[in-house]
């Protein structure tokens, strides 16, 4: 051997690093929609899940496109191929436009750094809080929406076993998970909820295995909070059969397993993007933090399936009112969940049909 394998390996790695960095940057897809004469450009920078996550990146884009139609802004989307491209992508957004939107908790540090470099630009961070003054931070009380899903799941499960598949263990996902657990516990303390983190938002094959294992261990409902990994949970339910149900997160994903979605937890990422874009157009932009829950219409329970009885919906509505009135505080961390005690919100009226007003809102959209 005139060249040792070790040196070949070192060469592999060095070359890979040297070539990967600029090439990844070059791969970044910029998708401008031309509206040449418009003065305000709003740029969305996705996290690595990117467009087509059937989750919050897509929702942010929907809000952006709506704002483009209504306010004549120029919408741009930059998809991030990996975590190292967050800063270059946000910088590109800040250089090109008036408002740059970082979609997702994973962009928190990057947006803070870029916002400090562009103090005259405006930024919106979804799902996390940035300390920079020119960043508007919008978080959601996913736990409140997920709580209602937990109430419905706890009442609907026949097996008294429910599985949750989390993407990565980051605060918005944890809020979903613990809110859901608190909801189940409130109406069905005997139901077991098993929580599995996939550690990826992009691995549907792994998501399918996790949910299959949960179904095989007796669960009849799974709740994926995992981006594209969650697509696998729907596939698992489809494979197991029509009595196995899935709860969607962020947006309606019923088409992935028609007739098997129990409900979904709606999250108003689109509304947040739309509203802040409007503020920028009208020169009303303000930095700072806001958290949108059931009360603000930022989250909600959507599209309950036919298997959800009117009684269960009426009960979910009682809980919704209790949360809005402040009589019930939904835990948002595992510590709070550990000390959470169910609150008596009364019993739904004995009437077999719930009145239309008492159904939870189908969507929190403004």
């Amino acid at each position, binding site marked *: 051997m005139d060249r040792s394998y070790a040196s070949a390996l070192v060469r592999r790695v060095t070359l*890979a690093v040297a*070539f990967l960095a600029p090439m990844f940057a070059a791969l970044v897809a910029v998708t401008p929609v031309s509206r040449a004469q418009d003065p305000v450009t709003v740029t969305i920078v996705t996290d690595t899940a990117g467009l087509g996550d059937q989750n919050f990146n897509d929702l942010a884009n929907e809000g952006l496109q709506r704002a483009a139609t209504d306010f004549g802004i120029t919408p741009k989307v930059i998809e991030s191929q990996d975590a190292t491209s967050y800063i270059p992508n946000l910088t590109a957004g800040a250089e090109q436009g008036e408002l740059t939107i970082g979609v997702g908790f994973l962009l928190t540090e990057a947006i803070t750094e870029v916002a400090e470099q562009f103090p005259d630009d405006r930024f919106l961070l979804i799902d996390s809080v940035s300390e920079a003054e020119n960043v508007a931070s919008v978080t959601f009380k996913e736990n409140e929406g997920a709580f209602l899903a937990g109430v419905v799941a706890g009442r609907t499960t026949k097996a008294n076993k429910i599985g949750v598949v989390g993407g990565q263990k980051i605060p918005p996902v944890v809020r979903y998970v613990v809110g859901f657990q608190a909801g189940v516990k409130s109406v069905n303390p005997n139901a077991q909820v098993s929580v599995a983190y996939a550690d990826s938002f992009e691995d549907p094959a792994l998501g399918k295995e996790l949910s299959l294992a949960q179904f095989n261990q007796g669960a009849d409902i799974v709740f994926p909070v995992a981006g594209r990994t969650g697509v696998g949970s729907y*596939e698992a339910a489809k494979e197991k059969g029509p009595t196995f149900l899935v709860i969607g997160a962020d947006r309606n994903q019923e088409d992935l397993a028609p007739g098997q979605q129990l409900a979904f937890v709606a999250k108003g990422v689109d509304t947040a993007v739309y509203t802040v874009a409007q503020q920028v157009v009208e020169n009303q932009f303000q930095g700072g933090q806001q958290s949108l829950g059931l009360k603000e219409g930022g989250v909600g329970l959507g599209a309950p399936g036919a298997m959800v009885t009117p009684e269960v919906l009426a009960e979910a509505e009682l809980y919704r009112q209790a949360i809005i009135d402040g009589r019930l505080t939904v835990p948002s961390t595992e510590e709070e969940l550990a000390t959470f005690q169910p609150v008596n919100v009364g019993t739904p009226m004995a009437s077999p049909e719930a009145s239309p007003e008492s159904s939870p809102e189908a969507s929190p959209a403004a």
Partner: protein
Amino acid sequence: MSDFFTIALLTATLRLSAPLVFAAMGGLLSERSGVMNIALEGFMLVGAFSAAAGTYYTGRPFLGLLIGTGAAMLASVIHAFWSITLRGDQIVAGTALNLLGAGIPAFLLQRLFETAGGTPAVARLPTIGGGLNVLVPVAFLLVPLVHYLLFHTRAGLRIQAAGEHPHAAESVGVDVARYRYACVLASGALAGVGGAYLSIGDLSQFTVGMTAGRGFIALAAVIFGNWNPVATLGATLLFGAAQAARVQAQALNLPISQDLLIALPYLLTLIAITGLVRHATPPAGLGRHAATE
């Protein structure tokens, strides 16, 4: 523990290992012939996307499988042309192909389906029971075939000669370039099947980045397996079993840290390399060009 060691754990192991076996056997052939192949991930992605798109347009998953295999093989022609005919750097070529494999499906999704992130749902390959699709047994039958080819046929010995000492092989009249082309194309086809396994075997759609590093794990399995088909199979099964055990433990809510469980497949693999594979000996001519090509 009777809840833990179930038939489901076994079938999950097979399901999680099978796509790795396809890609690893492809990588093994390519590397045995002397061409480094870090592009398995890219080939898998091309195969996964093309299989789903092919199934979408033809409505027939077997045609989709064929299209996925062919498309990944086409991608491997680029690798072969660069690495063999142009005598270029095989790592650079592989890196470029991995980037292509990530980028092209995303681009075509926009052009063909006007979506990002994933194809519409398509028909799946048939299953043989137990949640195993028809490609699972094919994956495991492939291993003895590759073993037989490499060690018991004239072509196999020539592949090895091309990989161990291309100059010597040339000097006795072996057409090194031809054997290397064949092996690289085979690696593309097999990795393509591994990708199709994910999109139309295990699932019923392509999603962006769905291989999630499996091509690199397959390449690692080739190295742990010391470029031997049977040992490589062992490495993929070890990883698949560890992943299945992790999934099972998570579903059972076992009182083990989730972080530890998530790391388990990688930890076990590390222990296996340091403990078992002290002396990895790659083909001596790996990455070296033949004298005249």
